[in-house]
């Protein structure tokens, strides 16, 4: 029997998690919410040592110390641009931990089972935890590799992928049933391996631009596997916390998919239907108009209304501070400048807001898409810095394109469009942008930071 005070402490921790999620959904309370969540987690981690007799306390404490150092180091060191893949990685290791916990529990249940005292439902929940946990682990690692560009960001397809995916999933379910009927460790291990395979096959066909949605989905999966693990261990806190994350994560996944104009099914399986074949993934050699920083400086310096569309390339080049300076100088000259922020600019919804906040761009200058989209046709110049897919008209015009249906910024309605780009390589979605070849468009090639500095000096010299 778990001591009552321990159970009450778990309840308190669960309440902390609920308050944390509530706090995180509003800008004013977000930071406090996160802190409350951390307090709840700390409370649970301390109290667990009194739940029942815990052996090996010293090695466990050492392991917790190692994990804490690794976690803090990773979280502190990461560049804000690389944060999405770090979240994916954290999610993956959480899923891996859940799968390992369930396997260990299975080894114990297997021994008890010979006495014929194990409920089938316990075993089913164990199998579920192993399968979903390992799926989340390997799937998250693949998303990490995609975001870190250790592998291609384009959908990876090979003949027989759907068959391999379906086959592995069915085999995993069949073995789970076997495990329930005849409890033993080995089917559990095989389920774990199959879970790893299913996770990889699930994420491979997902195109780069859709990866954030998949991270969110895998996050929800890990939550559910933690919840099932909680049931197996008879721990209400794990059940509540895991279910909260599972439910909130699923809902959040839907919100994100809607913000990108995608359905979840389309995100996961769109590539299988051949929807992404348009993606060339290579630099185009069609003719474009390129220009020099001095010309752009004149264009910007004598404009009345300028809109800046920042993208991931801006952050990669760490040019957001120089951009802010440029905007400050233009504002002093009397030019009205705003940033047009696409909801999924960067690599995740809200990522660009974080990056620009880091550069201390005033909040009032950040305009969300719905707010600003009507103003593009009155803009003299739109300066697109390191963005591509979020202004690609193919989202409106080309039904086969992987981003078709995604709401975009109406940069093509402005009088002049200036793209600052490193090269003619397409954006994360891997498709060509027609806007680059339009008559009102000019391109300023080069590293965003260097070009931005030149542009800044040229504007100052006007």
């Amino acid at each position, binding site marked *: 029997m778990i001591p009552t005070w321990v159970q009450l402490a778990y309840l308190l*921790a669960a309440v902390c998690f609920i308050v*944390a*999620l*509530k706090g*995180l*959904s509003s*800008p004013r309370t*977000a930071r406090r*919410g*996160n802190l409350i*969540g951390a307090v709840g*987690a700390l409370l649970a*981690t301390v109290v*667990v040592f009194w739940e029942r007799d*815990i*052996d*090996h306390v010293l090695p*466990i404490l050492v392991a*917790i110390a*190692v*994990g*804490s150092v*690794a*976690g803090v180091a*990773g*979280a502190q060191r990461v560049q804000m641009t690389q*944060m*999405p893949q*770090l*979240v994916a990685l*954290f*999610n993956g*290791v*959480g899923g891996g*931990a*859940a799968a*390992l916990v369930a396997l*260990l529990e299975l080894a114990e249940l297997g021994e008890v089972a010979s006495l014929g005292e194990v409920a089938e439902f316990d075993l089913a929940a164990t199998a579920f935890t192993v399968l979903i946990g390992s799926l989340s682990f390997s799937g998250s690692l693949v998303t990490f590799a995609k975001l870190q560009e250790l592998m291609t960001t384009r959908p990876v397809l090979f003949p027989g992928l759907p068959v391999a995916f379906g086959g592995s999933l069915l085999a995993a379910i069949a073995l789970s049933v076997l495990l329930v009927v005849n409890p033993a460790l080995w089917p559990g291990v095989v389920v774990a391996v199959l879970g790893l395979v299913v996770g990889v096959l699930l994420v491979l066909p997902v195109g780069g631009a859709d990866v954030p949605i998949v991270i969110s989905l895998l*996050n929800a999966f890990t939550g559910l596997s933690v*919840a099932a693990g909680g049931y197996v261990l008879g*721990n209400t806190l*794990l*059940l509540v916390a*895991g279910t*909260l*994350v*599972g*439910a*909130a*994560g699923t*809902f*959040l996944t839907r*919100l994100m998919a809607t913000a990108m104009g995608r359905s979840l099914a389309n995100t996961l399986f769109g590539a299988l239907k051949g929807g992404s074949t348009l993606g060339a993934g290579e630099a185009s050699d069609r003719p474009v108009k390129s220009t020099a920083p001095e010309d752009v400086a004149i264009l910007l310096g004598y404009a009345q209304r300028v809109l800046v569309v920042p993208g991931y390339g801006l952050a990669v080049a760490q040019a957001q501070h120089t951009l802010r300076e440029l905007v400050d100088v233009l504002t002093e000259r009397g030019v009205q400048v705003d940033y047009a922020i696409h909801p999924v600019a960067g690599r*995740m919804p*809200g*990522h660009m807001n*974080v990056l620009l906040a880091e550069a*201390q*761009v005033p*909040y009032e200058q950040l305009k969300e898409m719905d707010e600003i989209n009507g103003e593009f046709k009155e803009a003299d110049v739109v300066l697109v810095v390191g963005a591509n897919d979020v202004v690609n008209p193919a989202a409106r015009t080309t039904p086969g394109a992987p981003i078709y249906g995604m709401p975009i910024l109406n940069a093509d309605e402005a009088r002049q469009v200036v793209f600052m780009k490193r090269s003619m390589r397409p954006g994360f979605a891997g498709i060509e942008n027609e806007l680059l070849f339009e008559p009102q468009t000019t391109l300023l090639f080069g590293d965003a930071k260097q070009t931005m500095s030149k542009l800044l000096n040229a504007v100052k010299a006007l």
Partner: protein
Amino acid sequence: MDSAISAEVVWLTIFILSVFVGVEVISKVSSTLHTPLMSGANAIHGVILVGAVLVTGSAESAAALVVGLIAVVLATVNMVGGFVVTDRMLQMFGGRRREQPADSAGGRSGSTKATRQ
């Protein structure tokens, strides 16, 4: 206590209610907070650490102990790293709303960035 409700139904009740709470508490989130919210939720499922400690604490073989300790490390990375990185993201959101304190917060993030580079 010999109640008329079966344990399974109690568990199911907790599960179903948690689903509704989970959806309800985040239903009004603005799109700018999607990333921190995902990251925070991610940190919360790091509470699997509790489960990892429980199974490791009852490990009877060396192999089980090793696997358990690996699970403890992974779960701690998830939990601790998750909360820290979420706080780092939100620190930047907080900094720009208040005009004056923004300087101190901005200065801090600026200096850590300089060391990172």
